[in-house]
């Protein structure tokens, strides 16, 4: 097996020039660009493709170093040769979402009609619109049916949307740490983040590009607030407790006395280097609007009626942003239509972030589920190789 099979190639493709996508808000969008990464090789009958959908602030660099931050891919522990999502066996596709800021069409990209950045003239998009754009990408790659769609958090919403709106094009689906609808509490947290951005004087009504500035402070605060929701109280306590930052006693001022403050400030400050503030507004909005039950006429089970998809729903015990109860609601709806579903709650005290971390129970579950699905899909079963160090 040649080494280049697993080397990723940065790609962008322009889609929808002749046939725009009709967005939920009624606007026709086309042409639009999708930036994506692929890993592994598509087999002859094009049956081994796995689509990975990324979360709010992540991107297409799922298993290869991020060119902006230089950090390893966000799921490099999970995706690669011999790993749970084995790129020796599967052709892995990870697109940047519509509205994103890593090469796919979004508010920070140039509007071809005006030659200037879209800014707030970019249409408001939904999770369904993101999936529509991905469907065009999968068409473009000549794939009729994805072997599996996998995603955590907002990626899980896209996974649910895929299986709901294109059940014939999805053999298996793995929604992780997600919900079928964004809760009031989650919308509330998003609104705090958006307010932080839009009240930053440097935001300029979304037109900060023409002013040569960026709403760094607002975006950093949005990130800090959001970051807390990705962790858990025990995880924060274990990591920082009440430890002080570079000092022996409190400073009786408003510097970052505590390590946890310093940590959050750092998270905020590094985030602004890699993320666009307007993208943050648009993508959080897309999550807020997501409600598969309402889309299905008020009964979630109707979203999955007659589904032939093999499901594996995964949640994490300490995730309070997308708690297990919401995964369980998805499972109950799938049971109500006698769907083929597995459901595992992984024990972890690391909060929502656990889905991005090295959690052996999670990885074993995913490996086993994919193996079972491969057998039933009739993909050639070869002995698995040990993961490379």
């Amino acid at each position, binding site marked *: 097996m040649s080494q280049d099979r697993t080397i990723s190639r940065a790609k962008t493709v322009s889609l929808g020039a002749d046939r725009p996508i009709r967005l939920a808000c009624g606007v026709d969008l086309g042409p639009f660009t999708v930036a994506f990464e692929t890993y592994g090789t598509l087999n002859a009958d094009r049956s081994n493709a796995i689509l990975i959908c990324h979360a709010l602030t992540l991107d297409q660099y799922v298993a290869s170093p991020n060119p902006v931050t230089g950090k390893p891919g966000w799921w490099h522990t999970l995706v690669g040769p011999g790993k749970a999502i084995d790129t020796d066996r599967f052709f892995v596709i990870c697109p940047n979402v519509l509205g994103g800021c890593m090469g796919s069409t979004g508010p920070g990209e140039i509007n071809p009609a005006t030659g200037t950045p879209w800014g707030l003239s970019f249409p408001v998009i939904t999770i369904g619109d993101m999936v529509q754009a991905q469907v065009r990408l999968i068409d473009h790659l000549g794939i009729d049916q994805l072997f599996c769609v996998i995603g955590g958090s907002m990626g899980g919403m896209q996974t649910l949307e895929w299986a709901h709106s294109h059940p014939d094009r999805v053999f298996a689906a793995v929604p992780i740490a997600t919900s079928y609808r964004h809760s009031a509490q989650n919308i509330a947290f998003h609104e705090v983040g958006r307010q932080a951005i839009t009240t930053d004087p440097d935001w300029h009504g979304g037109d900060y590009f023409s002013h040569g500035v960026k709403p760094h402070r607002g975006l950093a605060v949005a990130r800090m607030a959001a970051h807390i929701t990705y962790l858990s109280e025990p995880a924060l306590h274990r990591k920082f407790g009440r430890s002080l930052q570079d000092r022996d006693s409190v400073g009786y001022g408003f510097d970052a006395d505590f390590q946890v403050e310093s940590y959050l400030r750092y998270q905020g400050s590094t985030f602004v280097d890699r993320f666009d503030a307007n993208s943050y507004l648009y993508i959080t909005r897309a999550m807020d609007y997501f409600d598969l039950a309402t889309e299905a006429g008020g009964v979630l089970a109707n979203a999955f009626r007659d589904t032939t998809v093999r499901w594996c729903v995964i949640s994490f015990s300490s995730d309070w942003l997308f708690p297990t109860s919401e995964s369980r609601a998805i499972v109950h709806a799938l*049971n109500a239509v*006698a769907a*083929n*579903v597995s*459901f*595992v709650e992984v024990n972890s005290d690391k909060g929502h972030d656990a889905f991005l971390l090295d959690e052996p129970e999670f990885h*074993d579950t995913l490996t086993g*589920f994919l193996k*079972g699905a491969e057998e039933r899909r009739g993909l050639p079963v070869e002995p698995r190789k040990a993961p490379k160090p």
Partner: protein
Amino acid sequence: MIATTTSNGIRVDLKLIADLVEPRTRVLDIGCGDGALLDYLYKVKQVDGRGIELSMAGVRAAVSQGLSVIQGDADTDLKDYPSDAFDYAILSQTLQATRDPRGVLENLLRIGRRAIVSFPNFGHWRNRLQILGQGRMPVTESLAYQWWETPNIHFCTIRDFSELCDTLGITVEKSFTLDRHGHPLQRPVHSRRANLFGVEAICVLKR
């Protein structure tokens, strides 16, 4: 619980249940543990199987083998399933641990065209002897818990079970009892001797 295994590595009582299942059918195994029965049914009988298991350790073990298993509870989660969704609903060694055995039985026969239920027989002579002779709650190979730690909260004898089936209008299509080694006894399950000598009963039920 009878722990003897067969040459295929599956527990004897599970193998007996598997023998009752027609090939290429749809099966829901409630209280499926680590999925041993489902795995056997899939490999040997090409069964389209699903499982429900209370313990997360069991669920993870089963899903890691590629089986379709969810974490759930026989008492609360069976109501979600549509009627006639499965050919068989199997409840092995779990009925006595449910809060509402009657409701569970009704749900099994709503979801499945048939139900296969196995349970420990509290009327076995050793149990009777321990209560009568020692005046204590029985602790035996098949009921291996002290009273204060047992998950089994609704014991019944074979006779009790038959009566409940009668009350619910459930037909016992096939049934047999097992001895302490897991071997089937050649006695009709409704006989007094079965209720005295059967350690465990396995019944195929029909609406």
